[in-house]
Structures are given as C-alpha cells and as structure tokens.
C-alpha cells in the first residue's frame, strides 16, 4: 500500500500564489504577449458551410492587399502529417484537401505585417462551396451511431428483472446544452523558426504532448521543437489537443520566413478549440418503498464531430455512485457536422451527474422521502463496480457537514411551501462522486550552492495553482523555506509532464516531485557516504530527515549538514536528481481509486410574478483528500461552482439548424455568469489524505462544477413544483 506522506507545516497552508505579483502587475507573459523582431501576423478564413467541398478559392485580392506576405490554402499548402494520438485521435492537419466537415473549418490563413492587415485581407479571400446537406441533428437518419465508444459501458445483476419487480419505478429523460469553454485568454500561438528548430508559444495544457504532435506534423525530430507556456489564460480542457491553428501558425512562419503570431478571435474560440457536448440521457430507477435502490439504468447519447473523437462518458459515474445490485450504464455517440467536441471542465460528469442526481430527487418525491435521506440510504461503502474498498471516501461527512451548515433541516418538504416575501424559496441537494484519473509524470530537483532549489516539470498552471502548491510541496520535501524554492513549468524541454486535465495533475506531478526530492536527498547522502567529517556519513535515506536547509539524522537532529555546506565541502556546483510517478494499479493496491466527493446544497429564489430566478446560496462540502493549499483549493471550488451556475442557468451554444453555424459566438450572445449572478458561497473540506497516491490528494479542478446543475434544478422544483429536465434552466421553462 502507498504510504501517505502527511506532515504538518508548509503544505496545507493557504499561502499566497507565488505567481500572484507577476499577474497583478501585468508582468506574467501569456502566449500572445510574446513579441519578436520582424514579427508577422496571421488571420484565419473559415468555411461558411458545414459540409461539402470548396469549389473555388480566389486569393488574388487578398494577396494584393496592403502588407500581405502570403495566403496559404489547400491549393498551395505542403503536405502535413497527422499528429500522434494522445489517447484520442488528433484533429487532422489543416488545409490538406477541399473537404469541409463543419461550419468554421479553416480554409485559408493569411499572413501580413500587422494583425489588422491580415484580418482585412482575410475578408478578401473569396471562397465558394459545393455544399452537401449537413447532418446536424441526432435524429437525422443518416447519422452514424457509435455504441460503447470507449468500452466503459457496464452491467451488473439483472436490471430488467429488478426493474420489473421494483415496488417503485421512475423513468425520465434529461438533456443538457452544448457549452463553450470560453477561457478569458484567447488561444494564441507564436511560432519562431531557426533553421529546422521551432519554438512555439501556445495556450496548451500539455506541452509534452504538443511538442510530440508538432514534431510529427512537420516531420521534425522531437528535439527540434520547444513548446513554451509559462502562463495560460485559462483553458478548462480546451488546451488538451493539438489544434489545427497551432499548425497553421507554424506553417505560416515557415512560409514567410519570419516569426508569426496567430491569436484566435472570440468567435473562432467557439469553433476552433472544442466545446462540451450536448447530451440526451435516460435514467430508470427501481426502488423498494423504503428507498433502497434495486435497479439503475443510465443511458446517454452525445454528439460527436463527424471525423472526431471525444472521451465523454456521461454514465460511467452512475455505475459506482450508489450501492445498487442491478445496474446498466451505456454511452453512445452520434456523428454530426459540428465543430470538434472536446474536454470541458468535468467532461461527461457534468452532464451525467445532472441526470442521475435529478432522477434521485424525483424518486425521493415519489417515495415521499427526504432527498438527502435517499442518498444516504444508498451510500456505497465500497466501490460497487470494482468491488474494492475506496482509497478514501468521506461523502457521508460531506452530506452531514453540508446539511448542518446549510440548514437543510429547515426545509419543508412540500414544493412551493417556503416563501420570503414575494419570493418562492427552494432547497436542493446533489451528491457528487467524481472520477479518478492520473497520468505518468517526471520531475527534476536541483539544489544549488547558495542553498536554493529549483524543481522542474513540463506541466502547466492554467490558473489552478500548480506553481504554488508544487513550490510548497518541494519546500517541504527538501526542508527549505518557500522563498528558497522555485518551481519551473510550462516548457517542453523540462522533464516530461502530465496534462493539466482530468483533475489528475496534482497527484501526478506531486508524486514525481516527491520522488525527485527524495532522490536528491539520496544524492546528497551518496556524496557524504565516505566523508568522515560529515555527521551524515553512512546514513541511509530512512535514517534522515530534512529541515532548515539541511539534512539531519532522525535519531540525533542536531547532527546534520546544510545542503550548501555539503556542496561547498565537495566542490560541487549543484546537485540534481530525477523522479517519476506512474499511477497505481487498483488490483495491486487492493483498492478502488477515489476521485473527489462532494455534497452541494443550493437555495434558489424565484419571483413567480416576474419570472426571475436567482441562486441565493451554495454550500459545498468537498472530500478532496489532502488539501495542499486551502486558499487555492477553495478558489477552485468557487470558480467551478460559478461555472456550474453558468451551465445550469445561462450557457448554451446555439447552432443554426439550417447551416450549422454557431450563432452566438461572442460574450454578448453566449452568456457566462457575471458579478451580479454570484450567490453567497461557502466551501468546506472534509476527509483524510487519499491512499492511492503518495501525496494523498484528489484533484479539485473539476468537481466544483459538478452537482450544481442538479442541485439548482432540484431547488427550482422545490420552490415552484416545476421539474425542469433540461439545462440551461431559462425563464421560458419556468413559466
């Protein structure tokens, strides 16, 4: 079993972000903040049909425009190779043929001396199409269906029999709209060639993969490519793919022989870097009169780009959310002529949880039971799918602490029975059992002769706090003050890093950092092994501890030696060590890896005369294992909560049903929560360090968004008696 390294000290404290001062002064450099001498700018031309072929492309007017250096189309683009799979098929390289598979696909890139000139010239590219009838609706009989796309469907017991004989049955269909990641930072690429060496500044969440992808697309040795992303202006999953615009920036730079900057426009962010799929889900529940689940079926259908891939299991979480003997979960995808679907904060889970936790609420009303009690009555003490104990689970405590803080006992069961003046008050609850995910990761720790350390890994900090928590962790592992430790990331030349995705980065890079730091201490012990003047002579790693910039013997803490003194005594400039982590194997560990758990309690206020609805309060209690930094972790949950409010009440990508054009691709039309939408939010953490990784953490990046949709819908029902099974919940659905 993995030992949890739980010490008191630096880790856990809500220390300020180490990157904070740079960000508040405007000094943090995001990809599109980089400039080079002789920099040229690129602008994209997108298709205006969703399916068909380009029949004519006239670039003469664009080429004749002021400042234009080149116009690249499928007619003159060189052959590009396909990027390697990252576990998912990479988008095809751009401008390789005349086929169009979605509205907004790139058909040309224009390069000019200034961004304004490139944009102006891009409008002068004349494209004509031989359109085909696009497949835009999941009900279109021409659409290709994929069943069990990832082998995640599950079945246990006898669902049919259990449903047929259940004392109480419930069935309903739920839908969720397509959502846009819409990070504030426009995705940007700056490409700089030096001979066959290519440097790329990009808004990626995964520099180690992006380097591999670019190298393969341009048939370069991997070592020739360097991807830099020390700061990324948010991404929420959008930065996990090697998007075509990245390749176009590099291609443009190679074509004109100058560095090129390509910044997506806000509308291009809606078609060029993925989105959360819409979903249509059916949940069937069977239960005994006293509220024990005997049957649970969850089936989901989500759209998919016609040539794309996407891992988005909406139902997988339902297989292990509750102790129920007879369960079927099924996912299907339908290929459409829509822009690429991709990861967005809590992929699959955000949609799936809405359906399951709404259905549980509806079942509670059928049973005349408190919705919270129904969840506790079906609590899964072990992972029912793997039939193994959880590596940690304090969901019960989440419910109990949350109910207490929220004042759940004040709820009167009857819908529409609680009022405050003119407002109807509704209380809603949802439980969350988030998935577990972790990738391999590497890190390197270096101690320098001045006693300071630098720890490195090619990971990213997309706003999550990786710089800060890894600085804390490194400082703890080496026994240094935080001020004496620097954590470097966002550079593909550093040791290979895991993606900032799946809420798995902190466990992955944290474990690698721990290993690197431990190996570094070993390297110091090796250095003094035969040194008769060192109090650490002959000590093994298990006989020493660290603190105050030195290594000391556990049995005699006064006997020790400072790192800097060891380096000086042995004439060494600096000492480095590598560390790596790989995910544990559940079978070997004998436990089911837990993601984070949470209980979400929501109060809504509805004015029945004006049709106004407001989320008034949200209490979130989260079991995320060991919390490395209370301040950044709380921020993650709050930010996720507001993302969940967006999904529940505002956010919907509207696609024109005739043309497949995204019709609301600006912040004026695609609404995200603003300051005035923010409720009173309370966040608390419960639980113990997780046993599945050596850091003891369970990621907090995504769970904050999950459960909010269901809790709001359940509260709306409690307030109004109206059950809304479709997100976002808009005024027209309420009245």
């Amino acid at each position, binding site marked *: 079993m993995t030992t949890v390294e739980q010490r008191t000290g630096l880790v856990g404290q809500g220390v300020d972000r180490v990157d904070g001062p740079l960000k508040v002064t405007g000094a943090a450099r995001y990809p599109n903040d980089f400039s080079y001498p002789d920099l040229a700018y690129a602008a994209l031309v997108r298709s205006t049909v969703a399916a068909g072929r380009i029949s004519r492309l006239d670039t003469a007017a664009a080429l004749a425009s002021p400042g234009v250096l080149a116009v690249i189309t499928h007619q003159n683009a060189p052959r590009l190779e396909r990027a390697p799979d990252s576990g998912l098929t990479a988008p095809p390289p751009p401008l390789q043929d005349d086929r169009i598979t979605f509205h907004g696909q790139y058909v040309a890139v224009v390069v000019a001396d200034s961004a304004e000139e490139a944009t102006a010239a891009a409008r002068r590219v004349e494209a004509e199409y031989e359109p085909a009838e696009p497949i835009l609706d999941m009900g279109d009989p021409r659409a290709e269906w994929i069943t069990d796309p990832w082998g995640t469907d599950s079945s246990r017991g006898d669902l049919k029999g259990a449903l047929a004989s259940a004392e109480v049955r419930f069935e309903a269909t739920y839908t969720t709209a397509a959502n846009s990641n819409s990070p504030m930072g426009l995705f940007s690429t700056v490409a700089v060639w030096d001979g066959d060496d290519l440097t790329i500044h990009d808004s990626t969440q995964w520099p180690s993969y992006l380097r591999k992808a670019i190298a393969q697309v341009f048939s370069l040795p991997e070592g020739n490519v360097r991807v830099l992303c020390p700061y990324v202006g948010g991404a929420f999953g959008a930065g996990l793919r090697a998007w075509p615009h990245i390749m176009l920036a590099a291609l443009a730079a190679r074509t004109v022989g100058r560095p090129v900057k390509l910044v997506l426009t806000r509308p291009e962010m809606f078609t060029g870097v993925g989105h959360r799929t819409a979903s249509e889900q059916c949940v069937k529940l069977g239960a005994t009169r006293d509220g024990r689940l005997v049957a649970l079926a969850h089936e989901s259908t989500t759209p998919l780009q016609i040539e794309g891939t996407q891992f988005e299991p909406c139902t997988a979480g339902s297989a292990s959310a509750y102790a129920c003997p007879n369960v079927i979960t099924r996912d299907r995808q339908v290929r459409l002529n829509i822009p690429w679907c991709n990861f967005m904060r809590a992929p699959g889970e955000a949609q799936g949880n809405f359906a399951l936790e709404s259905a549980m609420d509806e079942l509670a009303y059928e049973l005349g039971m408190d919705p919270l009690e129904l969840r506790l009555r079906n609590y899964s003490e072990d992972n029912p799918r793997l039939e193994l104990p959880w590596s940690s689970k304090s969901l019960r405590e989440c419910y109990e602490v949350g109910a207490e803080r929220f004042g759940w006992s004040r709820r009167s069961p009857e819908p529409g029975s609680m009022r405050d003046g003119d407002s109807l008050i509704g209380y809603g609850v949802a439980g969350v059992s988030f998935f577990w995910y972790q990738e391999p990761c590497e890190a390197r720790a270096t101690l320098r002769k001045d006693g300071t350390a630098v720890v490195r890994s090619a990971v990213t900090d997309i706003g999550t706090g990786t710089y800060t928590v890894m600085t804390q962790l490194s400082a703890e592992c080496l026994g240094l003050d935080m001020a004496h430790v620097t954590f470097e990331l966002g550079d593909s030349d550093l040791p290979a890093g895991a993606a900032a995705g799946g809420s798995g980065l902190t466990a992955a890079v944290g474990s690698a950092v721990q290993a690197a730091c431990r190996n570094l201490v070993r390297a110091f012990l090796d250095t003094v092994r035969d040194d008769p003047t060192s109090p650490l002579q002959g000590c093994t790693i298990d006989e020493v501890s660290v603190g105050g910039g030195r290594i000391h013997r556990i049995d005699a803490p006064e006997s020790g030696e400072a790192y800097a003194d060891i380096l000086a005594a042995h004439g060494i400039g600096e000492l480095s060590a590598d560390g790596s982590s790989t995910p544990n194997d559940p079978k070997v560990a004998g436990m089911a890896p837990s993601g984070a758990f949470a209980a979400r309690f929501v109060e809504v206020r509805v004015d029945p005369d004006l049709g106004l609805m407001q989320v008034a309060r949200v209490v979130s209690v989260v079991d995320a294992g060991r919390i490395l930094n209370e301040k950044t972790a*709380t921020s993650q949950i709050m*930010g996720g909560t507001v993302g969940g409010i967006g999904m529940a009440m505002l956010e919907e990508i509207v696609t024109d049903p005739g043309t497949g054009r995204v019709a609301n691709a600006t912040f004026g039309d695609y609404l995200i929560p*603003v*300051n005035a939408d*923010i409720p009173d939010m309370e966040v608390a953490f419960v639980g113990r360090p997780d046993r599945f990784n050596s850091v003891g953490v369970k990621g907090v990046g995504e769970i904050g968004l999950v459960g909010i949709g269901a809790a709001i819908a359940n509260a709306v029902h409690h307030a109004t008696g109206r059950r809304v099974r479709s997100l976002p919940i808009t005024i027209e659905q309420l009245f």
Partner: protein
Amino acid sequence: MRVTVTVNGEERIADDVWEGESLLYVLRERLGLPGAKNACEQGECGSCTVYLDGVPVCACLVAAGQAESRTVVTVEGLASDEGLHPVQQAFVECGAVQCGFCTPGLIVQTHALLAASEGVPSDLEIREALAGNLCRCTGYEKILDAVRQAAGRADG
C-alpha cells in the same frame, strides 16, 4: 500615422499606425506593454481596461488616434518602487487571481472605483463597478473580498 501618447508617465511614439488600429493593439504590439489583455475585442469583457486621461476605458474600443497627445495609465503603471499598489496586494492576498488573464483589467477598474469613491463602497456598488469585467476562473467572490480589503472595509 504617428501616435504620440504619454503612457505610464513617459512620452511614447508609435509610427506607421494604421488608422483602424485600437489603442490596445498599439499598447500591446507596438509599445511593448502587454499587461492590458485582449479577450473579446469588442468591449464585453473588460480585460483591456486602462486609464485614458484618468477615466477607465476598454482600450480595444478606443482608436489609437483618439489617444493622440493624451495620457494613458496601464496596469504596468500602478505599482511603485515601494512595491505593489494596495489594490494589487489585496488581489494577491485574497486569492482573487487564478489564470490571471482578467486580472489586469480588474485591477485598473478597482483602482478607478476606489479612487472615485467618496466613502467606502458597498457590495452592490462594487458589483456594479465591476459588472463589465468578466472572469471565468475565480467565481468572482474572492475578487469581491480583494476589493473590500483594498477599500479598507472591516470585512475585507
């Protein structure tokens, strides 16, 4: 055209500016001041907020020529030799920063709110003042904490 503008106390000249260019573009791409951010280019998000003659504006909506012979202060101009401005310090301490992309605009907007407030602003006034600044990471609550703190409110 040539644009002469005083930025953060220093006279700056940008040459060969196209008439259609925004102040934001000139600041970022011609004057080496990328602090103000470009996130929507149409005045919806507030990420590019700077002072123009003491008034906070979306630099993406100001034509560069409009700034001729005027005074601009960007986020890069708020800290002093003594360190961060109290607004900047509050954002760091309160955890009001995540990815940081909306932060420069929020810092300038908050700076303007507190400079213009006669008393201590209420939550409603703060939310109103920051209504034009979108943030996708923080959920706004910690930003409100930071503004309360910078305003010297007891609950900050």
